[in-house]
């Protein structure tokens, strides 16, 4: 794997995390428990999709510079078969979002999990934001100037997401018997996907070695500290070590991603190039 291929994969991984979680959150739009929280979660969805756009644009730029596009690279895992719509036509951010298949997506498993109830959606956001803020804080010092700039800008958004979701975890964890039970149920469902956050994929080992991305194992204690602090206040027990499911970052997903893509990509696949 060359330097630029690892960088492309890593950039797509960051983009996919944002797009899939953003899409999941956007499924709440119009269905939130109360107008104000509906807007809050929709804002977070838009933030995440905005971050994803920045990463996709950069990934597309890297792919186009690297000349990886076109029919001869149909099987390139960074691209997927849907991108071969002409000889060497430049790849766009939209193609990367809407025309890749499940095995091309490199998002972590946590973000593709179903919304469930409000507790599960909140906890998913909290566990992810705790990871994302520590990541972006370090990524802002990346040797790759573009990634550093996107991370620095996105970090501010992430801090708010973390604050908002932390308060909800505390509110539900330390709320009524029912809300506490729901938060614990959500924890049971989601915890096994948190190990992947700090387990480096092949391309992350390469980007970390080149000081493009932080060493994920150094982020784990910071993440644990943040999560534990909120759990303590919420009256939730920090789970003991359990078996963790991984694979999303390498394209091996749970059954949930396919449904997300089917809905999200339908329009562009049914009406290619459609704009409105």
């Amino acid at each position: 794997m060359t330097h630029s291929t690892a960088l492309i994969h890593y950039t797509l991984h960051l983009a996919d995390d944002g797009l899939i979680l953003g899409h999941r959150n956007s499924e709440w739009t119009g269905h939130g428990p109360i107008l104000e929280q509906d807007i809050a979660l929709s804002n977070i969805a838009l933030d995440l999709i905005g971050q994803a756009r920045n990463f996709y644009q950069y990934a597309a730029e890297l792919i186009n510079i690297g000349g990886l596009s076109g029919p001869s690279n149909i099987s390139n895992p960074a691209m997927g078969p849907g991108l071969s719509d002409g000889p060497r036509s430049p790849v766009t951010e939209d193609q990367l979002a809407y025309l890749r298949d499940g095995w091309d997506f490199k998002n972590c498993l946590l973000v593709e999990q179903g919304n469930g109830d409000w507790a599960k959606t909140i906890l998913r956001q909290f566990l992810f934001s705790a990871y994302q803020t520590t990541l972006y804080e370090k990524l802002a010092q990346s040797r790759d100037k573009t990634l550093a700039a996107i991370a620095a800008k996105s970090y501010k958004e992430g801090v708010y997401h973390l604050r908002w979701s932390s308060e909800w975890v505390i509110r539900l964890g330390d709320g009524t018997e029912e809300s506490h039970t729901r938060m614990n149920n959500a924890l049971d469902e989601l915890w096994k996907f948190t190990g992947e956050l700090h387990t480096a994929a092949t391309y992350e080992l390469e980007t970390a070695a080149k000081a493009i991305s932080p060493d994920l194992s150094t982020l784990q204690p910071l993440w644990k500290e943040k999560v534990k602090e909120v759990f303590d206040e919420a009256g939730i027990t920090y789970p003991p070590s359990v078996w963790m499911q991984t694979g999303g970052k390498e394209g091996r997903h749970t059954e949930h991603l396919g449904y997300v893509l089917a809905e999200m990509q339908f329009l562009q696949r049914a009406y290619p190039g459609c704009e409105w």
Partner: protein
Amino acid sequence: MAENQWPLWEVFIRSKQGLDHKHAGSLHAADAQMAIENARDVYTRRMEGVSIWVVESKYVHASSPDDATSFYEPANDKVYRHPTFYDLPDELKHM
């Protein structure tokens, strides 16, 4: 439904430094912290503000429309209360 409603809050937004907080609207929230965040999400998403005040609506005491005649109309003919007899320098804005 009514008894399950979160309390109503009035939201005041300062659009930029040096200006005062203006009433922006109202919203529902469980507590003051949530009210500020809701206000941030509902009323400042298009860069409308740099500072937020919230106050639970039940603490706002309002004048009654029935009092309008005795409250406001007596001021109608007191033109001397307006500081309109001063010459203002051109540099003075926002007066």
